[in-house]
């Protein structure tokens, strides 16, 4: 089959499957990033707290997932979450298995790793907030929730944007490792297409091109978001 037919959208054409794979990659990476944001916020909060054990726990989490290969984490999360949830459920007297679908396991794996790095970004973002603003908020009588909502969160996000942009790209690339769990994201579709048609060069190059488009578009979007978020802010180096 000619190259156009293989990648085309007609019968026997893999074009649609590849695009669906790319969509799946975007989806699972986004979910992973969100899970990572939740975990990262939690770990950053632990590391910033004055409570020594929390700080140590936070640092241990970050050290652990920065020292383990991502592929290992993917295998572990994929098989481990089902077993863990099943055991937990059995504890409350529930029989049978608790299944965790590949999508969720994959997003969790990406998120767990991303969280370790996001924690660092959020922590740095928090430390960059002027102490004076926090003092002023307290003296005006804001409670902690309001202060978080009005003062801390917007500024942390603004400082964290460059780091988050980079971590989004990392999440996109880490999602390719989820292919080992059978989820039909872009890497796996490329693999199956390559194996089925015996045209690995075409499929892997095509997959690589799609990933590149995703990262280039993401970079543009994040640069634009950064420009908007930091308007009016005087910084040492731009972009």
């Amino acid at each position, binding site marked *: 089959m000619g190259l156009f037919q293989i990648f085309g959208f007609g019968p026997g054409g*893999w074009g649609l499957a590849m695009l669906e794979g790319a969509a799946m990659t975007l989806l699972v990476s986004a979910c992973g990033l969100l899970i990572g944001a939740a975990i990262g916020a939690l770990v950053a909060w632990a590391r910033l707290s004055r409570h020594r054990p929390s700080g140590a726990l936070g640092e241990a989490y970050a050290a652990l997932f920065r020292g383990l290969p991502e592929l290992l984490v993917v295998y572990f999360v994929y098989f481990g979450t*089902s077993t863990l949830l099943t055991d937990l*459920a059995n504890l409350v007297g529930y029989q049978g*298995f608790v299944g*965790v679908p590949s999508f969720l396991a994959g997003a969790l794996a990406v998120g767990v790793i991303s969280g370790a790095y996001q924690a660092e970004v959020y922590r740095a973002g928090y430390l960059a907030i002027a102490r004076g603003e926090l003092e002023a908020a307290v003296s005006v009588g804001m409670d902690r929730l309001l202060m978080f909502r009005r003062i801390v969160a917007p500024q942390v996000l603004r400082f964290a944007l460059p780091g988050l942009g980079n971590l989004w790209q990392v999440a996109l690339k880490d999602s390719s490792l989820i292919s080992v*769990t*059978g989820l039909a994201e872009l890497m796996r579709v490329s693999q199956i297409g390559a*194996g089925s048609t015996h045209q690995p060069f075409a499929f892997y190059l095509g997959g690589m091109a799609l990933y590149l488009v995703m990262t280039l578009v993401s970079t543009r979007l994040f640069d634009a978001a950064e420009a908007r978020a930091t308007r009016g802010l005087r910084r040492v180096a731009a972009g």
Partner: protein
Amino acid sequence: MGSKFLKSVVVGASLAAALAAAPAAFAKDWKTVVIGMEGAYEPWNLTDSSGHIVGFEVDLANDLCKRINVECKIIAQDWDGMIPGLKAGKFDVIMDGMSITEERKKEIDFSKPYAAPPAAFMAAKGSDIAKALGPGKVVNATKDPAAKDAAVKAVQAALKGKTIGVQVSTTHANFASKYLKDIATIKEYKTTDERDLDLKSGRIDIALDDYPTIAAALDKPDAKDFGIVGPEFIGDVFGVGEGMGLRKSDADLTARFNKALDAAFADGSVKRYSLKWFKIDTTP
């Protein structure tokens, strides 16, 4: 904050987990059966360009599920995670050209075999190996152990210093490590497609897999320079045929599938699927 908060988090999480698993709750009532396949083991199961899994085992699975009145759901899973996935509850049945062996029986249960093809070697026509091993010939290890020993010796002699490719964790990998360990270089691949690519590019000299898979690979347009060579083994490390893998705790489901298989054998359905996908009748 503190222990009260923590306790409510744990209770909430377990409740959420239990609720999320509600669909899987009917484990004993078997309304839905989830079947794990590679989707990359042509012609047993393969993924077509629209992303659907098709193949011999898909046809057979749908047939059997209809007979025992359950809904079949097929999900993709890499071969090397099949048994761990089954035990972790990711699916209820493995149907992936998995041979029934004593080793595996220690961990999981099997249905009756639904196919029993021989194993086969594939190499480039006209290569040293092809010349040394000659064309394909069936050798039944259980019926004729002496012939099997002679065939194994022939293989060992022909493969000395060569490279053989097999898929990880298969009976074929076991054959290679049992008989060819210090004789040939053994390369193990996650999927058969990757191994076939390496055979085509010359990184390996010979491949070993089961007959239907080899035949399907040879059917592809770029395989015209390759052919089946040497002994086609039945038995010994290759097991007694391919069957469905189930958890030991699901003996009731195994029994139901066995009954369905008996019916499928009796009315010739299995033979029909076999001829459609394998071009030969592999009914045991």
